[in-house]
């Protein structure tokens, strides 16, 4: 067997599809078996490369070759019904001292299949991650509705939270006069919608003045300041909140049919804050500071805010109060009771209650 035959056999047995073409007219001078299989009908001797690679601009190929670098791209062909991806490379060479183009194609379908599969899976996982992240944020938001952020952080990090005593905090308790009668009257659904509006407004005021709503129970609203972050202004914050809540209701009543009248009790003292429950979390506060605020509420008349001598020292310089005499407070003995009526400074005119 002569050398030419051997090289022809080797040429044909290559896994790659290889062709040699004339550089000017792109006429195919020879092509191996694989190349002819991949490009049947257009790859015979004398055919033009332009007909083999119809999507490729031969000018681009030429400019690469002029730059002395190979032209590389990927082409897709169909074998039976299967898409086959080929890596194509065209380089300039010489054959028996005549310049020629060497065209090489390698089947990279397997790599492409894997590449596409990984892309697809990555997209799926990324989408799922986004959904999980959104879900997590939603759950976090829900949990932040039932407990303060710092407590939530503690719970997230350690899995438990311990009850904490706050020596200096202030508490506000509010409920509505005659709510039970209001509720059984006509249109209970609408009533609850209104209650919700009012509580939402209270939440906004509370947030603005460094207070936090602890909970609502029926028509009762409980807010606190100085928990879980301590603040020297806790009593001021709660007193302001109380005044603004009452003022808000006065204004609202002026423009609405249904009249809402509240009673408010405020107090400063030691408070214990803790998460209660395992499956159903509630962040709640306890202690004499809380109980006394609840007692104060019972001393309030329609649209009044009551406090006692325990809280007075914290606020008397800045807030106007009216004495309401000494009374027996259940569980606390005799206490001097005061009604909060407004703020002293002219700049705080907005805090004066309508008389």
């Amino acid at each position, binding site marked *: 067997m002569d050398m030419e035959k051997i090289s022809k056999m080797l040429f044909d047995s290559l896994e790659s599809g290889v062709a040699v073409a004339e550089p000017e007219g792109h006429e195919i001078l020879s092509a191996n078996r694989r190349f002819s299989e991949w490009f049947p009908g257009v790859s015979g001797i004398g055919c033009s490369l332009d007909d083999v690679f119809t999507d490729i601009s031969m000018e681009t190929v030429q400019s690469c070759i002029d730059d002395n670098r190979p032209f590389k791209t990927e082409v*897709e062909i*169909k074998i*039976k*019904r*299967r898409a086959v*991806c080929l890596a194509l490379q065209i380089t300039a060479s010489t054959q028996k001292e005549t310049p020629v183009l060497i065209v090489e194609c390698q089947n990279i379908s397997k790599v492409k299949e894997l590449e*596409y*599969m990984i892309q697809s*899976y990555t997209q799926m*996982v990324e989408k799922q991650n986004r959904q999980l992240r959104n879900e997590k944020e939603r759950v976090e938001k829900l949990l932040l509705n039932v407990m303060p952020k710092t407590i939530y952080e503690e719970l997230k990090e350690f899995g438990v939270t311990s009850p904490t005593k706050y020596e200096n905090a202030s508490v506000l308790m509010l409920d509505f006069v005659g709510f039970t009668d209001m509720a059984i009257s006509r249109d209970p659904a609408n009533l609850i919608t209104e209650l919700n509006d009012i509580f939402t407004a209270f939440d906004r005021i509370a947030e603005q003045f460094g207070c936090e709503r602890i909970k609502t129970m029926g028509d009762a609203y409980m807010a606190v300041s100085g928990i879980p972050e301590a603040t020297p202004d806790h009593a001021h914050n709660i007193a302001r909140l109380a005044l603004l809540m009452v003022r808000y209701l006065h204004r609202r009543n002026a423009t609405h049919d249904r009249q809402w009248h509240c009673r408010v009790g405020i107090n400063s003292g030691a408070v214990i804050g803790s998460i209660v429950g395992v499956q159903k979390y509630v962040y709640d506060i306890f202690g004499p500071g809380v109980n006394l605020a609840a007692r104060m509420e019972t001393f309030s008349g329609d649209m009044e805010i009551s406090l006692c001598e325990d809280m007075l020292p914290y606020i008397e310089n800045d807030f106007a109060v009216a004495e309401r005499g000494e009374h027996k407070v259940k569980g606390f003995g005799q206490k001097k009771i005061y009604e909060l009526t407004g703020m002293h400074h002219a700049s705080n005119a907005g805090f004066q209650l309508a008389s």
Partner: protein
Amino acid sequence: MQSIFERSGGFAAISKVVINFYNRVLDSDTVGPYFENINLATLIDHQTKFIAQVMGGPVAYSDEQLKRIHEKHAINQNAFEEVAELMKQSLQEFNFPQDDINHVLGELGRRAPSIVNA
């Protein structure tokens, strides 16, 4: 309970099934022609997501989406059954337990109303 997807080793294991199934589908004269004019990237994408889904992996397609994707092609019950059979063969080739194969075929069968339209 862990899904088949998790039990069998996640995507690393499933990827082999995808390629195997893809080859079987294209080689089949019954269903191969359906995939004739779909480009490689799209086809692989659909098959990866679909197989991951019927094995309980990250969910990708709603029934509504399946309907939309297949409505352009007239797919009859015969073609659907052929695909299920090819899926079974792929899973058998990788020695999936019979229970898992039944489960996957069940998941596939459940979606027939969204896929068969002719």
